[in-house]
């Protein structure tokens, strides 16, 4: 005999309105034929209603895992299990989807079948890091569910002080703006770091994210420690006939308002014959004009990546944006990918060796200074790393001559 549906007058108010309701979904699970999962979700609904009533959360962590891995299961034990015993254990399995969240329906259905058999049937697509979140597993079912998911070709995601699950924009799969292969780059890096995902042993979490251009559709800028963006070095590609068509479509005034005036570096002008004049030396690859004129304008052909390091959310010193550490790197050939992997390992090795406990990469750089970070990683200085030179004189400059000589030497070498 299955459990009675709890009264949920507050949650019921989230079933009205046009947006799809997760409460309705939870009730579908609670009413499912499978008595075990049904009771578990009825119990969950009871606890959630209590949270809505008292405005408090009732989950605590613990230690639950799968054989061979030190992370990837998020244990959840209820603090009100006496009242809601069937959802006393409600653990999450974090599973890594394919880059850019592509699925075939067979895999999704198979995941559902496993989660119906071994879990509550509740799945978040996706968590903030980019995991498939299989929520609602009892401790005794975790390994069984995992064995089946793993056999399907899916691997567990990150948690704790290790490398986390990553995210990529749709990239070259369906976007003409992608300046590098975000999907292959993500797979290459993440596959190489599976050990650090599954056995966390870093000072704190570390995230990679991959966006194919400055539009940053994967939200890499402030949501990843190591953010990789697509860009180009040569001139952007202009189809003047299509520019004329766009001018005709928008009208001259609106074309000037929406394209020319919105260029952040005043690198654009409209010629008298309605063609576009581009000052490519002033262009900062921001993507705005390309976004507006997708038929007429494209990124250049000499494409590659920019790496920005140190983005993170508030804890502990405040929010930080990733800043430029590698202005440009090619990412086409196998050698290019090897160079990226080698660099990624240098980033992580330095982080492991130098960050304090619970310190993110950005905070470490804030503490030691970017110049020391670059020296530690053996990365060359570049003017694209700063928005302006220092504005205060509290600095020892007795190494100036030597540093100036190094710069000239590098300039000469680069010229040769």
């Amino acid at each position, binding site marked *: 005999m299955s459990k009675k549906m709890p009264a949920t007058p507050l949650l019921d108010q*989230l079933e009205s309105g046009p947006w799809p309701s997760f409460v309705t979904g939870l009730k579908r699970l609670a009413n499912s034929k499978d008595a075990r999962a049904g009771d578990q979700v009825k119990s969950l609904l009871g606890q959630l209603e209590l949270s809505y009533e008292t405005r408090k959360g009732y989950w605590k962590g613990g230690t639950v895992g799968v054989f061979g891995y030190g992370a990837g299961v998020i244990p959840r034990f209820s603090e009100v299990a006496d009242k809601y015993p069937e959802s006393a254990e409600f653990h999450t399995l974090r599973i890594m989807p394919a880059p850019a969240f592509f699925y075939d329906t067979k895999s999704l259905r198979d995941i559902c079948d496993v989660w119906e058999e071994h879990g509550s049937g509740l799945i978040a697509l996706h968590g903030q890091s980019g995991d498939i979140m299989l929520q609602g597993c009892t401790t005794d079912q975790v390994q069984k569910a995992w064995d089946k998911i793993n056999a399907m070709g899916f691997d567990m995601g990150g948690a704790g002080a290790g490398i986390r699950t990553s995210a990529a924009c749709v990239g070259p799969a369906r976007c003409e703006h992608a300046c590098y292969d975000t999907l292959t780059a993500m797979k290459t890096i993440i596959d190489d770091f599976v050990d650090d995902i599954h056995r966390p042993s870093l000072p704190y979490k570390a995230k990679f994210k991959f966006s194919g251009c400055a539009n940053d559709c994967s939200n890499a800028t402030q949501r990843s420690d190591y953010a990789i963006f697509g860009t180009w070095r040569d001139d952007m590609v202009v189809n003047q006939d299509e520019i004329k068509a766009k001018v005709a479509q928008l009208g001259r005034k609106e074309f000037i308002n929406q394209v020319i005036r919105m260029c952040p570096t005043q690198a654009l002008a409209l010629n008298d014959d309605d063609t576009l004049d581009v000052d490519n030396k002033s262009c900062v690859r921001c993507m705005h004009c390309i976004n507006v004129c997708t038929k007429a304008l494209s990124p250049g052909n000499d494409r590659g990546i920019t790496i920005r390091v140190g983005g993170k959310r508030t804890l502990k010193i405040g929010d930080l944006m990733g800043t430029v550490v590698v202005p440009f790197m090619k990412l086409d050939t196998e050698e290019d990918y090897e160079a990226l992997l080698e660099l990624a390992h240098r980033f992580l090795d330095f982080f492991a060796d130098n960050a304090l406990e619970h310190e993110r990469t950005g905070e470490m750089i804030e503490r030691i200074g970017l110049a020391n970070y670059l020296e530690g990683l053996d990365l060359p200085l570049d003017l694209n790393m700063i928005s302006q030179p220092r504005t205060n004189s509290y600095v020892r400059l007795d190494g100036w001559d030597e540093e100036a000589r190094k710069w000239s030497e590098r300039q000469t070498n680069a010229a040769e």
Partner: protein
Amino acid sequence: MSELRRPIESGVPDSKNFMHPMLVKNYGQWAWHDRPQPGVLRHVAKNGDTIYTVKAGSQRQLDVFAIREICDIADEFCEGYIRFTVRSSMEFMTTDETKVAPLIKRLEAAGYPVGGTGNSVGLISHTQGWLHCDIPGTDASGVVKALMDELFHEFKHEEMPNRVKITTSCCQINCGGQGDIAINVQHTKPPVINHDLVSMICERPTVVARCPVAAIRPAVVNGKPTLEVDEKKCVCCGACYPPCPPMQINDPINSKIAIWVGGKHSSTRSKPAFHKLVVAGLPNNAPRWPEVAEVVKQILAAYKQDARPWERMNEWIGRIGWPRFFEMTGLPFTKYHIDNWRGGRSNLNASTHLHF
């Protein structure tokens, strides 16, 4: 004991195994795209191949029955493929233009609104909240459901000056990201400490180190080693609560909601920007958070009315100035808006550029 299976450390699956064949065929060969109507994208490859994407919102917390229905739709219209966005919208792709209208009809009949493209209000990205988090100050899925009901029209239409990205966060230290509008918990009282439990549960030096303002110190209460908080220094951020659950920060009345605006990840036009505090002290009013919805709608109305095409929230405010923003939204300006955190001086007006 039965033999334990060693995991297959396969990493991330290859996306090409899960992609519509048209995407595999034209991988890296796309030429341009446009939006024939709100909720629909058309991508055209250099060889003329075309694929239509219909974008639909989801509840993110999906039950297996919902996922199977979504799969049925993808099987019927999209050759069995589907993609999700980073903000939990669903993308259904087809090469057949004649399938677009019936696909939209089918999705909306199943309760999944089509929209979220271009200059619309996209699906609010959200966290776990009371449903599953161990430290939440509020719920996430409920807040998003309540707000998306209110912003339904703006999801389905492209009437905003540019895209609007809204985020939520159930605590103030971690999960939620930057957004044009960010709806975040903001605690207003120091943690309430259960001194009987601290020494049993918490690694005290770790907790002391976690505090951003060094307000926590070791103490002895009733003969037991514990921690105490200098309440004058405490900024009520809740950073001590995850490593030390007996330092309860969540409070049904004093954990409030704050709204921040002008966050932006992209480097498009302007450089990326952090969101800025505009309103605090809103009640954590489950199940529908009407006070939050009211302020969000006020801000969106002003932006929609006044911003120029392509201006994101922070770019619009950058042009009109903060005095005009507060005037247009009717929100109060307080001493708490003045940044006093390290580096905060750069947020003061060091010029005679004034708005009247």
